[in-house]
Structures are given as C-alpha cells and as structure tokens.
C-alpha cells in the first residue's frame, strides 16, 4: 500500500543523474503552480501520468525526489509555453523510454495489454450468452 520515494541508490539512471542534483536548489516550478489555472490543470493531469524514475511506483505529481521536481518544472514550463501535453509526453518517452509514461502505448511489446481486455469482453459476452440462451431454449 505504500509506494514512495525510496533510497534513490537502488536505481541510478544515467540520463537522470545529469538532471537532478541534490546540492542545487529545486527548479522554479518544482513546487510552484502556474498562474493560469487552466494551464496548471493541464500540467497536473499530465504529471499524474508520468513516472518518477527513481521512485517506487509514484508519479512525478506526488514525489519529493529531486528528479521529480525537475520533471514537474519541465512540464510546467512547456505547458506554459503552449505545448500540447501529448507532445511533452512524446518528448519524455523519446528521452527516457516508455517506462516514464504510465499510459502504455500500443507497440509490438504491449499490444496484449489492449487485446486481452477486448478478449475479456468477448468471453464475458459468450459466457452470458451461453448460459442464458441455452436456458431459454431448454
């Protein structure tokens, strides 16, 4: 039930190390909201679906890790500059890989994630159809 910022030693990611540095002050928008509530809402929605790379199962929207602060800053700055949230996600995926996004894309490796639910719907429909149609006929 607890998922949180764990000892970052466990997972040191090379590109991340350059971004986050404990001795530096947090980036300006790490703990500050955008002035425009509409833009802030957009940024917040996006942040909630991005993974904090050094944490255990936490989004960057709810982590105290320095890297999460830096990523929040990036997201807010880019949203403020008028960028589309999905474009920012694509940029982050290009930089850190699919791991950074909590919203899986349909790729060669992930298609079963989307095929199985469709199959489940079909199976559920079939199970109920079989049970009930047979009953009526009987």
């Amino acid at each position, binding site marked *: *039930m*607890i*998922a*949180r910022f*764990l000892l970052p030693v*466990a*997972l040191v990611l090379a590109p991340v190390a350059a971004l986050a540095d404990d*001795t*530096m*002050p*947090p980036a*300006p928008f790490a*703990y*500050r*909201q955008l002035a425009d509530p509409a833009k802030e809402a957009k940024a*917040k929605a996006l942040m*909630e*679906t991005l*993974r904090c790379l050094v944490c*255990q*199962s*936490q*989004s960057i*929207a*709810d*982590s*105290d890790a320095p890297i999460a602060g830096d990523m929040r800053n990036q997201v807010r700055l880019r949203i403020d500059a008028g960028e589309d949230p999905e474009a920012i996600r694509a940029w982050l995926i290009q930089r850190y*890989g*699919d*791991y*950074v*996004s*909590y*919203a*899986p894309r349909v790729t060669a*490796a*992930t298609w*079963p*994630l989307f095929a*199985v*639910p469709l199959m*489940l*719907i079909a199976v*559920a429909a079939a*199970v*109920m159809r079989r*049970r*009930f149609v047979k*009953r*009526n006929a*009987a």
Partner: protein
Amino acid sequence: MLAELGLAMLWLAAALAGLQLVAGSVALTRDGEGLGGIVRPVAVVQGVLAAAAFASLIWLFVQTDTSVKLVAENSHSAKPLIYKIAGTWGNHEGSMLLWVTVMGLAGGFVALVERRLPERTMMATLAGQAFVSLGFYAFLLLASNPFQRLNPAPQEGNGLNPLLQDPGLAFHPPTLYLGYVGLSIAFSFAIGALVTREVGPAFARAMRPWVLGAWIFLTLGITAGSYWAYYMLGWGGWWFWDPVENASLMPWLAATALLHSASVLAARNALRAWTVMLGVVAFSMSMVGTFLVRSGILTSVHAFAVDPRRGGFILALLAINIGAALVLFALRAGTVTEGERFEVTSREASLVFNNVMLSSILGIVLLGTLYPLVTEAMGVKVSVGPPYFTPMSAVFAVPMLVVLAIGPLLRWRHDRFKRVSLVLAAPLAVTIIAAIGFGVSGVTSTMSLIALSLAPGLAVASLLPLRGRNLARAPLSLWGMVIAHLGLAVALFGMGADGAFTKERLIAACVGESVDVGPWQVKLGAITPVAGPNWTALEADLVASYDGAAPDHLKPQSRTFWAPPQTTSVSALHTRWNGQLYTVLGEEAHDASSAAMPTGRWQLRLWWKPFVPMIWLGGVLVALGGFLALLSRVRQDLKRRTVRARGDIRRGDREEREAA
C-alpha cells in the same frame, strides 16, 4: 532461550500440520476412519503452537533482544512500545510468521466450531488446509527463520523504516493478513468439497461465513491502507494502482465474486462449479499477492526479501498449490453439475453478471500488474498505471454498478422486468439529474462525471430493497446487503469528488503570510522545532479558517528520524462534514541563485478535498454491511443448532419413556 523455544514450537507446529495432512487423508479411506478423531484436536494444537511462537517473537521485539538477528535488523530500543510490537510484522520473516499464525488459528477455529458439513468433507478440508500450511511452514523454517541468532550481539538495533512508524502499521498488515489467509479456509473448503463430491447448498452455507469474515478484513485492510497512503505520502493521493495495492485488490475482487456466487449456491443450488472455482481463485490471488510483495520482484518498502531464493520458494509454493487445486478441479469438474437453472431476468442472472464483471476486472488488474514484469523479462521496460487501469476497469465496473441497482429487486429464478421497472424510475431520475447538474457546474473529467452521476442513483437504488418493509422487522442480512451496497455508492461519490472538486495550492510562504485554498484561508503562524522519542522535527502552526469562521490550528511537521536517518513530512488534516483540509510542510524555500541562502519562506502544500473522506467512509460501510450479514448467518446457525439440540433431548426423553 525464548528464541530457541519459539523455533522449537514452530517446528512442532509444522510436524503437527504434517500429521493433520496424513491423518485427514487416511481418514478418507475405508480402513482409516479411526484416525479421523485426532484431526480436529491436532488442527487446534497446531494453531495454538504457531500463535505461541508468534507471541515469543513479539516478546523478543518488546525486549529489543539484539542477539536475535531479526530484532537487531529491524528494531531499536528507543522506539515507542507500540512500534516495537508492530515492528514484529514490519519485516519479511515476522510477517510470514504472522501469516502461518493466522492460517493455523483459522484452521484450528474451523476444526473447533464447524459441524454442519459431513465429517468426510471436513477431514478433506482440514487435510487441504494442512497441505497449504505445510508449504508455508517449510518456507518459514528453511528460507526465512525469524528466530536466527546473531553472535556477537550488537549493542543497538538498526531501527524501523520511519514510514512504517505509524499507528497504521499496527493494524494494516494484520487486518489484510486475516483477509488473505482467511481465504485459505474457502480454498480448503473447495478442495474438501471437490474431493468428496459434496458441492451443494450445505457446502456453500458452511463456507459463506468464513468467506464473509475474510472479506470484511480485506475490505477494512484495503480501506485502511488507502487512507494510510493518503495521509502518510503527503501528496493527497489515495490509490495509485501500485502493484502492491493491486495485490490486495485482486483477492478482494475474487472474494466479492465468491461471496455472491456462494449466496446463489446456498439459496438456489445453482452455480456449483463456478463457486468452487472462485474459492480456488480467491486464495490463489492471495498467494499471487504474497509472491509479488514478498519475493522482491517489485522493489518497494513491502519487498523485504531481497533474496531471490525466497522468491523462487514462494513461486514454487504458488505453482504447487494452485496447480494441484486446478488439477483436482479438472478431474472433478465433470461430476460437479451446473445445478438449478434460471432465466435472464432473475436474481441469479444478475449475480452471474456481477460475477463475470468482477472476474473481468480481476483479469484487467492481474494483466496490468504482471505485464510489465513480462516485458521487462523481454528487455523492454514499460509502465502501466492509472491511465490504463481506471478506464479499463470502468468498462466492466459501470455495467456492474448498473446491474447492482437492479439485481437485488429481482426475484429468484424467474421475474419480469416490467414488475421492477417502475420502481427503478427513481434512481434513474436521480442519476440523470446528477449528471446534468454536475455537467453544467463544470465537472470536465469524464471519469469523475460518471462516478458523481452514478453514485446518487446507486445510493437510492441500494435502499430500494427496504421499500414497503417494516424496517424494524427487516432481516439483518437484508440490512447487511443494503448497507454494503450503499457504502459502495458513498465511496464512488468520494472518488468522483476527488477528481472533480479538489483545490490545490503549492506555495512558499513567510511566517505571517495568508494563503487561500478553496473556501479556506490559511495563515502560517509560526515554525517551531519539536523533538520526539526518536526524531526531531520542524512544526508549522497553520491557522485555518473556513469561510471566515473561527480558526482551527493544524500542525504539519517535517520530521527527521535518526535511526535510520531519514526525513519524512507528516501531514496535518482537518475534517469537516463536507471535506478535508490537507496540509503539508516542506523544506525551507531556497534562493534561486544559491541553495545555501535561506529565504525565510517555507514550502507549503495545501489541498481542500471536498467529500473525499467519503471514500473511506464508504469502505467502512461496505465492511459494516458484511459484518451485519455475518452476524445474521452466525445467529441463524446458532438458533438452528439449539433447536436441533433441544430436539435431540426431547427425542432422547421420549425414547427413555418408551423404553420404560
């Protein structure tokens, strides 16, 4: 000395589990019936021994006996007593000992009180329980001995992870374990019934209270865990679809389905094979959860086991138990007929629908939790999170909730939809009004809008089964169902409200500065240092006023522990009838040019969360509903038992008179 005694009792308990398995199995054969007499007492003693071993471990933690490795690694003499005790299960070995203790006690309890089933089925059930226990005893004794000594003993222990030093830890794991392991009883009943081919209403009635009990604890455990994460993490999130959370949700989904199908089996002698299958699946999900959490496959606070051997061990246990159960099921499924029949518009049919939907949600959660492990093994790291789980499970949850509104109004076996359609106009109207109302008032998130619209209608519908009844005379089990379903509606509203109405404010404030968040005005009164038994902290005095009313004081802390050294923020919450104010004190804000320059401004995180506590209130209501249902079952059972006992006495008297 106590550590050795504890270990000896554990070995003895394991040996008794072996005896229970052998005697229970032999008792099933024609020649071995004589052995049946010892199975129940053995089960009871085995449970008591496991509990005694667990009690000795608790005592070692209370004494901070650092010559025991587990204590040295996880405790500290300066810790408050409650965390010394709770620390017993705040680690891998201790929590596995808690697991076998609960399992042993549950088995002993069944052996002691369960008299409804044919004795042969009981023997098979207790043998099955012993089989599962034996695996976990082996795991404990061979791969995670909690009583291992350390020589030389260190002066002081390492302490407990500060995140675990919270009253939540004292209750959350034991509650969840009671639920997880309680399902082992359902599993053993299913095994017992399969072995003796006694799958029928009597089996369902005997199993139901145990499933209900386990399900109540699971519900409470999940609710408490969610609230704990909410206030401990300091960011106001309450459900992350984290694998560890999913590990507790999956058994709950299966147990919920099992509960409902067992009701159909008990009342109508239908859904036989399905109920047995769910009994197997529910406990399998508990074991999958344990595997995920304990094996270290997910690196998290829960994964105390870093030793891959342990992971392999649990995986083997999982494969043996589930595999054996499924093979048995495959062998016997042919002889377990479907049972009574029913039509599309009947209560059974709506319960079948609910079962299929719950199982599908279970499938989604299982897939989303395990799939990243699969791709990682193939060398691709992906994340599956809320953007996947929430809509995918909603696809099945929304139709299920709609049927939940209708099902309880239908009659068993055969009904006409026309009969109930007029009554259903009320919840339908409420739903439509809510949808329009919230839509117009600017709720933009689709998921929130669905939840906020469905919840009021569902609440009305959940009360409908009481319509036209004398409320004082309505059976307790009916009240149980109504309250549990109402709880679901309440929780759903809270979930929707969080997404739709939460106001967030992140700010670096000077002492004396005021901040607005929603209807609240919050002033940073002061920052003062405070000290606890094993930590020091900075504490903010926040003076919060709701809509100009008399102010309340909230005192969030930024707390630094010294054993082990770690900083956590301790949130402060203020609850009103219409929501919760959530405050967190962060670090001192830094100058943009240099980290060393203090600015006298403090990072504050403030949230106004209207109606969000309804999530946990709903969870508690669901559990309360389960408790009422359990109470009514137990009461009926006791009544039946006394009636039968009286009948026996009377019959005895008559026989005596006739003989005289």
